[in-house]
């Protein structure tokens, strides 16, 4: 294990966040806060409670998930894509590092960043809506596992992408709709039966449900189901990344 290399990549990526603090931290915090203001304070008071939770508080877990997912993906995908784009990948390719060590550095840094971001957003939410966290351990567990899983997913996208468009397309046209339609703003039981069935096929729905349970102990599905779906998606990403490394796809010209 070339731990100095893993540390070097990790540090490099964390330093990049510091440089781009506006884009990677401040801007998502602001845009998420807007939701809290609009739905939590302004409109929220006119919407009835869902499962005994005030509307403003109800949407917090889903919105944190939204930032967590999109930032995990974009951090990790950008991290590995950028060296390919600028050509500095030559150094990574000629270094005595295994693909796994490269992954550890990039995915580790991306997951750290997005977890930190989620915690900042959580703290910010506190200013706008009344919050309680029933199971802090489970809450953190969901945060970290989701961050790792989707950073891994982002890493795969970054390896696959050969232009900036592909890099942005997945978070934009897949993740955002999945989060919005995954029960961020409503409980699935409020939907007509047909849409309830459709929602069952949305993996993000299970994440939000589990995450929200860790706050308020209200959930659309059982905790076990949420954990299984999350574990399943993590396993899928691991499988994909193993296959990519085995086949040498795209990293090596």
């Amino acid at each position: 294990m070339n731990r100095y290399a893993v540390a070097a990549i990790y540090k490099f990526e964390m330093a990049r966040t510091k440089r781009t603090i506006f884009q990677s931290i401040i801007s998502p915090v602001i845009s998420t806060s807007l939701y809290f203001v609009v739905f939590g304070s302004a409109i929220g008071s006119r919407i009835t409670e869902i499962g005994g939770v005030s509307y403003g508080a109800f949407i917090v877990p889903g919105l944190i998930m939204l930032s967590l997912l999109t930032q995990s993906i974009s951090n990790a995908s950008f991290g590995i894509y950028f060296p390919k784009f600028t050509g500095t990948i030559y150094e990574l390719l000629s270094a005595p590092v295994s693909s796994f060590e490269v992954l550890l550095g990039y995915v580790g840094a991306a997951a750290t960043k997005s977890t930190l971001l989620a915690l900042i957003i959580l703290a910010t939410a506190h200013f706008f809506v009344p919050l309680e966290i029933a199971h802090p351990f489970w809450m953190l567990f969901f945060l970290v596992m989701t961050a790792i899983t989707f950073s891994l997913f982002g890493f795969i996208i970054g390896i696959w992408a050969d232009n900036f468009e592909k890099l942005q397309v997945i978070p934009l046209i897949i993740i955002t709709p999945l989060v919005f339609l995954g029960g961020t703003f409503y409980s699935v039981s409020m939907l007509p039966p047909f849409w309830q069935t459709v929602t069952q096929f949305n993996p993000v729905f299970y994440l939000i449900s589990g995450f929200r349970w860790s706050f308020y102990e209200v959930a659309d599905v059982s905790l076990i189901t949420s954990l299984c779906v999350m574990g399943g998606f993590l396993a899928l990403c691991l499988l994909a990344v193993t296959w990519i490394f085995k086949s040498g796809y795209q990293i090596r010209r």
Partner: protein
Amino acid sequence: MIQITDVNKIYASGFQALNNINLAIKPAEIFALLGPNGAGKTTLISAICGIVDATSGQITVDGKDIVSDYRHTRRLIGLVPQELTTDAFETVWTTVSFSRGLFGKKPDPAFIEKTLKSLSLWNKKDSRLIELSGGMKRRVMIAKALSHEPTILFLDEPTAGVDVELRKDMWQLVRQLRDDGVTIILTTHYIEEAEEIADRIGVIKNGQLILVEDKIMLMNQLGTKQLILDLKEPLTEIPANMTDFNLQLKNNGLQLIYSYDTTEEHTGISVLLQHLSVAGIAFKDIKTDQSSLEDIFVSLVKETT
């Protein structure tokens, strides 16, 4: 130090960039890889460093296979690529420290400091790379390549875009490294460069290594020298008593050129001069000219076309 055996590279496009390369690089030598654009120099270096996979053949470094034993072999190698690719917003210090870590070395600020100083980059250590000139960036790339104390250094066209002063410094550094035991492989289009710095020279063309030779041997073997006489009166033909000599008339008969082999015991110059005075031919000036590696190179590349 490096052993390349039957290496072929066919790119995904179907283009064969390396054609059955066999080459052994000795420890602590400066090896210059010479060849025109598209000859396959960068491809060969990339194959040794692990940036591209050879399609077939084997490469060993320090006796170890570069694929199965990549951790060992890559630690020994530092690479300065042809293209200037840098992380624009990093500082000199962080980017060089990053390289050291990536190659598995414990942080050593003192060594980085020494490296930056030897490349006259110390006062730029906190500058972001985007603020540096091309020549400075090139030096940063060298610093990165040296940051993990490699025993083999690849320089892919190190002097492209580098001024005379820096070039001199660079050669100084390269010689110093060689004397410290580092093996250096560099590529260049400039024959004078190879002539100036290399211990051995390989010429590559269309993916084939057409010649590998000790520089001095090469110049001796292929090097002929010319004696050029500027005549007072033009000659219409070579005087009868001198037809045995390898003589040519040029410049409307105003120049008499004698080509001879420098490796011969008797060059025949004194005999020729005697003959000239016997024939009553007077000359204004006399000079010699040695065919440079450039001439050799050009004639070689032409021959194989």
